[in-house]
């Protein structure tokens, strides 16, 4: 009997791009494009079932085995530290993790740096590597506001083109990690649905054209 592969996709623009990639790789599920509020879609003929979840929850669904595979940004994956296999860089949703500040910002090493971010763990690790003492402020959105209002010295956030930063008078101080969407898999599912997962990885790899290292 063929085993169904459960796929957690991140809701939103990235998820739609990812679904298109799955469709091109031969894992389409036509009902998914019908308007409505359904969250689960399946194509039993292709042995696949998709569900839409909040992007930051994809790692949890996969780690806990509710989904066999999922697609999630490297930023979210690093921040939550999910214990999963990271099988493929899908090369979409590309951006960087960066430090940004007001244009006139000067780092004063005589006192702790105040950092506002959504990515607490990433920011802590980044500054720990430099032995820089920081005071971290966790925010859930509109991070760019923090330096403008004097809430923080710098922010650590994802930056794509930098347009939002520029419009708010901020500049990138350093881009320190590349971010893109990753295909992740549950460790146990990988053992018991090996063929299904490997075929999916191969199919997707052909679509993104980075058939470089694997054989």
């Amino acid at each position, binding site marked *: 009997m063929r085993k169904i592969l459960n796929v957690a996709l991140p809701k939103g623009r990235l998820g739609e791009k990812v679904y298109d990639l799955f469709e091109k790789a031969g894992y389409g599920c036509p009902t998914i494009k019908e308007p409505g509020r359904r969250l689960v879609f399946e194509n039993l003929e292709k042995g696949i079932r998709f569900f839409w979840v909040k992007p930051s929850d994809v790692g949890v669904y996969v*780690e*806990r*085995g509710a989904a066999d595979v999922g697609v999630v940004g490297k930023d979210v994956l690093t921040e939550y530290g999910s*214990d*999963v*296999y*990271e*099988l*493929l*860089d899908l090369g979409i949703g590309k951006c960087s993790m960066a430090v940004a500040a007001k244009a006139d910002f000067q780092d004063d090493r005589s006192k702790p740096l105040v950092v506002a971010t959504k990515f607490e763990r990433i920011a802590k690790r980044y500054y720990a590597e430099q032995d820089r003492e920081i005071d971290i402020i966790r925010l859930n959105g509109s991070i760019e506001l923090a330096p403008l209002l004097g809430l923080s010295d710098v922010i650590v956030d994802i930056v794509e083109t930098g347009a939002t930063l520029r419009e708010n008078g901020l500049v990138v101080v350093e881009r320190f990690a*590349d971010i893109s969407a990753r295909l992740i898999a*549950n*460790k*146990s*599912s990988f*053992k*018991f649905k*090996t063929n299904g997962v490997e075929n999916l990885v191969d199919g997707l790899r052909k679509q993104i054209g980075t058939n470089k*290292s*694997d*054989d």
Partner: protein
Amino acid sequence: MKDWSAVLSREERTAFSLRALYAENGYEKYRMSKLEEYDVYARNKEFLVSENVLTFTDLDGRLLAMKPDVTLSIIKNARLGAGEVMKVYYHENVYRAAKGTRSYQEIMQAGLECLGAVDEDALLEALTLAVKSLDCISESNVLELSHMGIVGGVLNACALSDGGKRAVLDALSRKDLSGIRSVAAQEGLEESKSALLERLATVYGGIDGVDEALDVFCVDGATTAAVADFRGILKGLKALGLSDKIRVDFSVAGNRKYYSGVAFQGYVEGIPTGVLSGGQYDGLMQAMGKNGKAVGFAVYLDELRR
């Protein structure tokens, strides 16, 4: 005799089957107190899954810990003469920080340790018992084997910095090829070495399937010897009829300071995380001032509650 099967939970039933299995194979029950001197863990922190240990002061002022691990206590108390083997099993609660929370958790573990003059037969017996332990939980299971001599040897052969080694091992545990590639690029490795590191993440399969692929890791004397050792163990497992349960997977991690030889992890279908973990930890024996070798594993019974 009263039939208890209806009353026992899956966790308890499995625990009793495992105890019977280990006892039938000549392992003796090892019973220990809930508490251990904190010092034992402080000195061997890197062996522990989590560094957090639940401590308190005893009435006489000694700092004690609720056991986060059983292996260290067994090794500490082992009295081994030359040529002697100690085979013990345990069924104990341990106390660890629960992932993603800021609180401790009680975890029921069963497992075994074979210490001292561990020869190839004893190693194969331990691996066989690991597979049989998984059988006690579910027929559909796999035991994944890595070899620390091969993984460590390849890292050494690539002349990575300490930070680079850590980063590669971290990416390897996630089978993250792009992560391995980016570390290799940062460390300025030539293409062939980078490809070799990537092979660690991509070689996966049954005993016969990966046999040829192992050749690629014979890059110097140390790795050639490690590959030969691994092949010998795989051949032994095949002869025991365990081929369909064994997968070779170098992403199975063990602390390089303590583990030597094989490291393994067991999975059963339907449980999202590994339920069994173990390996050969001759390095830990040395670190604790004991002679001889060691192999052992633990079964995480709390995973069966779901």
